């Protein structure tokens, strides 16, 4: 039987196991939306295409499935760009479907035409313009395969309107073969044996864990490895929650706003084992003084990540879960050596413990003002262990990474690579759609929140009980902090001079708004918010010029931290 392109699209999505898509209709996707009415696929209508893509991203990060978003051509497609770039930088599996003007009009500057394939080429893992309905099913198959395999990433399918209307015989391929794309999954055994030897011999080893651990769901094997060898673990922002932050081996986050002890441990280490991390500049600081005494083992599924920024002594290309399993298996065969290695690490643990004691993560508490860190601690204390936390970008994001404890994987969703303000609210929306019964909290700042605040409407419409904590300092706090420290307190355009009544804003959308202006009100507001059904904004009037510390100034080495302002 022949089906129209739009029916083929929806049938293919069902074949891929897609249950929910996020999107926004328009002229060149109107046929798809017409067919959606009778489809088993649930569609969530956001209020902006950027939010649809972030929601699909949040859905993907929380579940591990491929997120799917849909938008119309032209402005619809250009609005998806930030969302796609966010997912690309953090390697999130996603398929974005955009409408396109009919093939006969492409290149004619038609109404709502944009060269979507050209625009998204540098921010996608791959993209397709479908020019014949006969190719559609195979392209969708390829898109999902590419999005979820290897180093995951977003794939765009640009679908002209006439291709949606044309008919073809529908048969969904069960296999796909791409001669130019064959990711290496299986880590080389010889290299793994070498790595295990190096780990057993190291005197000051550190495990440096990135987003790859989350993407491959490697948390259990990672825990096993760290505990077997008693190696301290530091994570990047993207690796957060793949290792329990309350674990005795956890050093917390490293890098620009990492803990003192994580950065000192990395700087002093003799063996750095990088697992699914890419030595981002926010992690390494000045490259020439990064882990100067360490041999580096780098495990990554993407060969381009290896030796891109730092020298590597032992590269292992492969799927992190596969490599960790093999490492753990090897270690199980060498129980005596493992016991010896554990013993030999005692002085190292003492050294790390001393750093931890000297400069623990802390802040100056206050009885007069609400300290933002205090809000994060209270949120942690009063929320469930399996709560999913999203953030926007800025000071609140760093405080969340520093002061919230994560015990379960895929519970911290944040834009790491691109650093997209306005990510957290729609990502929370996507996560809540995936897990209607779990607590989902967007920790936000007053600046970031206003970048996608229109999504309150989506939350209310779909009864998604996301709890939004706005740390309101009336500043674009992170930029203000830089201006204070490096630009002589010249606060150029960082003061949000118009105070917003966030309670009224919440109420305008039919949500609930609560406010805490004094420290003693914080707990009450959080408790009330968690007890209130539906979406709630908690506004915390926090101390305005609080800084995120410690801080490695841009261009400095990890051991040159500023500890307090």
């Amino acid at each position: 039987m022949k089906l129209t392109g739009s029916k083929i699209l929806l049938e293919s999505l069902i074949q891929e196991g897609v249950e929910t898509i996020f999107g926004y209709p328009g002229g060149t996707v109107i046929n798809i939306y017409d067919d959606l009415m009778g489809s088993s696929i649930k569609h969530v209508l956001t209020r902006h295409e950027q939010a649809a893509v972030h929601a699909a991203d949040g859905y993907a990060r929380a579940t591990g499935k491929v997120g799917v978003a849909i938008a119309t051509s032209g402005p619809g497609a250009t609005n998806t760009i930030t969302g796609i770039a966010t997912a690309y930088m953090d390697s999130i599996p996603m398929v974005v479907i955009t409408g396109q003007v009919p093939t006969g009009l492409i290149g004619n500057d038609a109404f709502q035409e944009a060269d979507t394939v050209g625009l998204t080429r540098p921010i996608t893992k791959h993209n397709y313009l479908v020019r014949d309905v006969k190719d559609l099913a195979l392209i969708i198959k390829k898109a999902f395969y590419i999005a979820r395999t290897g180093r995951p990433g977003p794939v765009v399918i640009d679908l002209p309107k006439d291709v949606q209307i044309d008919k073809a015989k529908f048969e969904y391929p069960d296999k796909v073969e791409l001669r130019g794309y064959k990711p290496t999954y299986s880590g080389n055994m010889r290299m793994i044996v070498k790595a295990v030897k190096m780990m057993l011999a190291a005197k000051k080893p550190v495990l440096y864990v990135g987003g790859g651990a989350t993407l491959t769901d490697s948390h259990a094997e990672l825990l096993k490895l760290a505990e077997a060898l008693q190696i301290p673990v530091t994570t990047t922002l993207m690796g957060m929650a793949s290792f329990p932050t309350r674990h005795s081996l956890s050093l917390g986050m490293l890098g620009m706003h990492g803990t003192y002890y994580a950065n000192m441990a990395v700087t002093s280490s003799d063996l750095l084992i990088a697992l699914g991390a890419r030595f981002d500049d926010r992690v390494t600081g000045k490259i020439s003084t990064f882990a100067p005494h360490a041999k580096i083992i780098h495990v990554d599924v993407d060969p381009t990540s290896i030796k891109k920024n730092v020298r590597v002594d032992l590269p292992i290309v492969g799927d992190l879960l596969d490599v960790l399993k093999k490492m753990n298996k090897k270690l199980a065969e060498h129980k005596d050596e493992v016991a010896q290695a554990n013993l030999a690490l005692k002085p190292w643990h003492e050294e790390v413990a001393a750093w931890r004691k000297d400069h623990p993560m802390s802040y100056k508490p206050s009885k007069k003002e609400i300290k933002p860190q205090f809000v994060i601690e209270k949120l942690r204390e009063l929320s469930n262990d399996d709560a999913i936390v999203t953030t926007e970008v800025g000071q609140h994001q760093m405080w969340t990474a520093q002061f919230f404890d994560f015990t379960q994987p895929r519970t911290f969703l944040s834009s790491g690579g691109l650093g997209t303000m306005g990510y957290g609210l729609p990502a929370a929306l996507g996560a809540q759609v995936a897990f209607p019964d779990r607590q989902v909290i967007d920790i936000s700042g007053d600046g970031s929140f206003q970048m996608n605040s229109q999504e309150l409407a989506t939350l209310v419409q779909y009864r998604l009980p996301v709890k939004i904590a706005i740390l309101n300092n009336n500043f674009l706090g992170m930029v203000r902090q830089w201006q204070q420290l490096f630009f002589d307190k010249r606060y150029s355009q960082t003061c949000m001079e118009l105070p917003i009544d966030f309670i009224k804003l919440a109420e305008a959308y039919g949500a609930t708004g609560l406010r805490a202006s004094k420290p003693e009100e914080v707990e009450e507001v959080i408790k009330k918010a968690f007890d209130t059904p539906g979406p709630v904004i908690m506004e915390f009037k926090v101390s305005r010029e609080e800084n995120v510390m410690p801080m490695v100034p841009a261009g400095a080495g990890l051991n040159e931290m500023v500890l307090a302002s």
Partner: protein
Amino acid sequence: MRHTISVLVENEFGVLTRIAGLFSGRGFNIESLSVAPTLDPTISRMTIVTSGDDRILEQVTKQLNKLIDTIKIIDFTGEDYVEREMALIKVTAEESTRAEILRICDIFRGKVVDVTPKCYTVEVTGSPVKVSAIIDLLRPMGIKELVRSGPVVLGRGPKGWKSG
């Protein structure tokens, strides 16, 4: 340092943009690029001359490999290969210079492929150095226009890319 690499890619819509965009987006140099389909019409072969140190070249080849449309990369650095470039040179041919042009052509085993009363178009093939040399010799006669193909290369010996 100058490096020559061949890239075998899916002969698909937009593939040239992907390759060129990768170079510009990551700040890699392209000195020349030539592209045409291979014996298998679904595959195109690009010859790219780029420059950079070993670390950059490693990133270039890895990043090219990462593209879904890239089937194979052949890096000719340190390899034994045949390199040829072609040029078409439109040169002013006055009565006084015609004989000299033909002589130069002869030395470089070039051919005159178009003749008008005032102008010759010379075709010459060889290594990029040789092509540059004939251009230098013809320049004094007055070159009106010229086009160089950019080099194409093949490894020496009986081995084809599929077996290598």
